[in-house]
């Protein structure tokens, strides 16, 4: 613990919030917002016991009760989290570049421009010049600037997903595949290590699999999340039911990404043709791959918002060092 105290930034403020030193502007805005919110909530509590986190437990002024610090995430969870974060970031970017080589989705075994896609992104010629268009079933959307037609180095270019979302930024199927397939191995090996370890030490069964009580608490947990209230005290030491369901969902999504990705491989299809039956064909697998990736992106966005709302310094630190300050229960 002592070694970690040097970097404890909680000095003069409340224990939940750190001053935004050296942070990017975005993070500073986010923290200020959270700080204000937390201050407002913590007001009565603060009057009773001024919270100043001691620099080290041994040196703490005895009359003040120090905030409880727990070791929240194990080393395996922390490492696999960051490997996963990097791999997913790169898989999404390179996946969108690969998607751009044929920005249409089909259902079944087969599908090309000569068949009917249920989703297509492209540039179309109009009397007003080229426009970006996204077609989903019978619906047509003008998505100029983002999908179908977007600027690359200031020049409007026909392109499925825009340059700023893809890896590499320029359109190159060969290079994007190199990124994608390297990090596919990283993602898969990381996922296997995490899963096997989690089952072995019962992290999955104990911390992630929801209990009956958890499931019964779904309505109140949803209400708490909607009011942006985060658990405190003992409740903050365990994952709440929505976290459990979200993390289980992410595990399922990563598994589906790997399985549908493999189904797109003609070599794997020869070795395991049943994959084609499970997913309804190679083009269906490609579409499911895209949907699951979209859900993972949605997970990441909600996840980041929750990190910001729950106190980004404390949350991010707990995923780096494991150290987590438990917020006291409200009076």
């Amino acid at each position: 613990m002592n070694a970690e105290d040097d970097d404890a930034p909680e000095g003069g403020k409340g224990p939940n919030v750190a001053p935004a030193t050296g942070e990017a502007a975005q993070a500073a805005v986010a923290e200020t917002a959270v700080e204000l919110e937390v201050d407002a909530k913590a007001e009565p509590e603060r009057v009773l016991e001024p919270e100043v986190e001691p620099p080290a437990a041994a040196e703490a002024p005895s009359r003040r009760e120090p905030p409880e610090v727990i070791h929240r995430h194990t080393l395996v969870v922390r490492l696999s989290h960051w490997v996963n974060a990097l791999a997913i970031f790169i898989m999404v970017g390179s996946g969108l570049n690969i998607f751009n080589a044929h920005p249409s989705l089909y259902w079944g075994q087969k599908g090309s421009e000569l068949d009917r896609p249920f989703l297509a992104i492209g540039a179309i010629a109009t009397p007003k010049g080229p426009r970006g268009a996204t077609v989903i079933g019978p619906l047509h959307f003008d998505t100029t600037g983002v999908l179908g037609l977007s600027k690359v180095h200031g020049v409007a270019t026909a392109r499925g997903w825009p340059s700023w979302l893809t890896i590499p930024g320029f359109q190159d199927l060969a290079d994007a595949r190199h990124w994608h397939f390297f990090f596919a191995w990283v993602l898969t090996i990381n996922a296997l290590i995490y899963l096997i370890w989690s089952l072995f030490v019962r992290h999955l069964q104990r911390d992630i699999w929801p209990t009956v009580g958890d499931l019964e608490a779904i309505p109140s947990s949803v209400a708490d999340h909607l009011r942006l209230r985060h658990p405190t005290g003992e409740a903050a030491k365990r994952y709440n039911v929505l976290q459990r369901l979200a993390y289980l969902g992410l595990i399922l999504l990563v598994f589906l990404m790997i399985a549908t990705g493999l189904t797109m491989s003609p070599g794997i299809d020869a070795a395991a043709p049943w994959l084609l039956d499970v997913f309804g064909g190679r083009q269906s697998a490609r579409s499911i791959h895209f949907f699951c990736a979209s859900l993972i992106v949605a997970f990441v966005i909600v996840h980041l918002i929750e990190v910001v709302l729950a106190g980004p310094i404390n949350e991010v630190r707990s995923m780096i060092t494991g150290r987590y300050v438990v917020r006291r229960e409200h009076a």
Partner: protein
Amino acid sequence: MTLLTRRAALVSGVATSGLALAGCERIFMADRLNGSPSFQRVLGVAQGWTLASQRLLLSGGAMAREYSLADLSPRFKANGTLHPSGDDYARAADQNFANWRLVVDGMVARPLSLSLAEIRALPARTQITRHDCVEGWSAIGQWTGVPLGLLLRAAGVGAGAKYAVFYCADNLDGEPAKGGEQAPGQYYESLALVDAVHPQTIIAWAMNGRPLDIPHGAPLRLRVERQLGYKHAKYVQRIELTDRLAGINGGKGGYWEDRGYEWYAGI
């Protein structure tokens, strides 16, 4: 106040996510990394893992799925060269490819030079398979042709031969979907012998019950069903057995391989 700060927190959360996604180039320098040969070498390591694992999984000679006539694509997309340029090919097409010859040479005991009629007279295999383009689309077609293994056995595979190299009659200058402008070059491809002698690897002369048409590779094209479309060389004139790919054109074993694509295209 609370509402305002919550909204600010939400907005900043979304903005942070967006920034993280948008910042590929600036934060992670993806494009600069992409241009680094040593980084590309690191990424390339995965190609070896993929090849090794698929070789293991396919060591029993697994077959690609074969479909039924009801599954045929109503229209089968043609890609790459749609009509080879040049007088030689035009003359051959005018003659309905009657004088087209397929040469099998290199590290073989008995070099072959076969006319189209001779090839059609050889035992043929018909298969309805799915063609998977590296771009992402798929089409199902019926192919008839002579198993390549039969041709290679007839020629007698020389000791030490490792690859079959396919030389084609078309020059290709790239496709935008595959990465923008490409230097033009003669199309060629190569396979490891284990894939060349697979029962579904055929030199096809018919598609959907009719002689192969020009956009799909007339008069002869390779079908190698457990790999992606760019391996399926069209307009094949010559098959050379060799022990190395270095020294042939760009040295990577194929037109698209020389332009950055994987040599092993089972993925």
